[in-house]
């Protein structure tokens, strides 16, 4: 059986930091309507764009990874919101019709 920690975003974040890579952690803070991943779901991203974990069913991960790159550079946390009412949602396609708020922070 696979090591359960292999897919653990926090374990991976710590591992990447140990290798000297810049890392950001994205966490689902709130959801409305039907959202595939509940609050608390996490995604770790490193400076080269590799990621582990999920904050949606794959709909907004691309946009989150992009924001994470900025957060790694600047160190300022970002609060992202995606949903069908948001123009960005059409781009990244939150097809489930829900809304989700995601907090992205740098791992120091």
């Amino acid at each position, binding site marked *: *059986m696979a090591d*359960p920690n292999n897919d653990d975003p*926090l*374990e991976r974040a710590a591992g990447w930091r140990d290798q000297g890579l810049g890392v950001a952690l994205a*966490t689902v803070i709130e959801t409305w309507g039907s959202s595939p991943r*509940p*609050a608390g779901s996490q995604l770790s991203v490193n400076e080269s764009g590799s990621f582990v974990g999920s904050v949606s069913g794959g709909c907004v991960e691309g946009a989150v990874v992009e924001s994470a790159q900025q957060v790694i550079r600047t160190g300022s946390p970002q609060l992202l919101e995606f949903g069908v009412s948001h123009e960005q949602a059409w781009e990244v396609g939150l097809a489930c019709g829900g809304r989700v708020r995601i*907090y992205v922070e*740098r791992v120091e």
Partner: protein
Amino acid sequence: MKREVLERLQEHRAAHRPVVLITDLESGEQQLILPGDDAVAPGLRQAARDALASDRSGTVETAASRVFVRPFNPPLRLVLVGAVHIAQPLARMAGETGYEVIVVDPRSAFATESRFPGVRRLSEWPDAALPALSLDSRCAVVTLTHDPKLDDPALDAALRSDVFYIGSLGSRKTHASRLARLRVRGFDDDALARIRGPVGLAIGARSPAEIAVSILAEITAALRRATP
């Protein structure tokens, strides 16, 4: 997240200690709360306790700010008594579902590495193995042997703990005689009602893998307090 917060969080998780991460969404400041921490504002302490009990994250308004409360409960564990055929797909599927699987079977021909690659295997008898595991409310126990010598002491240990799920493989007839034996051990009807038998949801499962699906579905419903 400060590196020291991440390191302490991972230490608590590795030691199977429940812990709550609080993030101030305005300042970005973070703190960890352990149950029984009294150096914490009462409102936050209650929010942390609720988050661990419900295993749900959420935002909370405090006097000063808005905070995100993220519980980290100890890992889910599934104890399988009997390294039989059904245990093989069940161990694999439960691993995928996030359980640490522990297979207990003193019969060395059954609990082999090649039958259970990477799975923790204990070759003690269940009455020695289960109490040593410190069963808790994040554990499920399933007996699969049909053999009273193995199943009964395992059920005895499970019933004396607060595991969230107890299942026991066997026909209605086998289950009735099992309950009769456990009554002799001193368990009353309320205690015995905790045992799901025949085990698993009624989905018409036939093959070992299908039976594993039905058992894992029933365990999931018990964990999430759903009524299928």
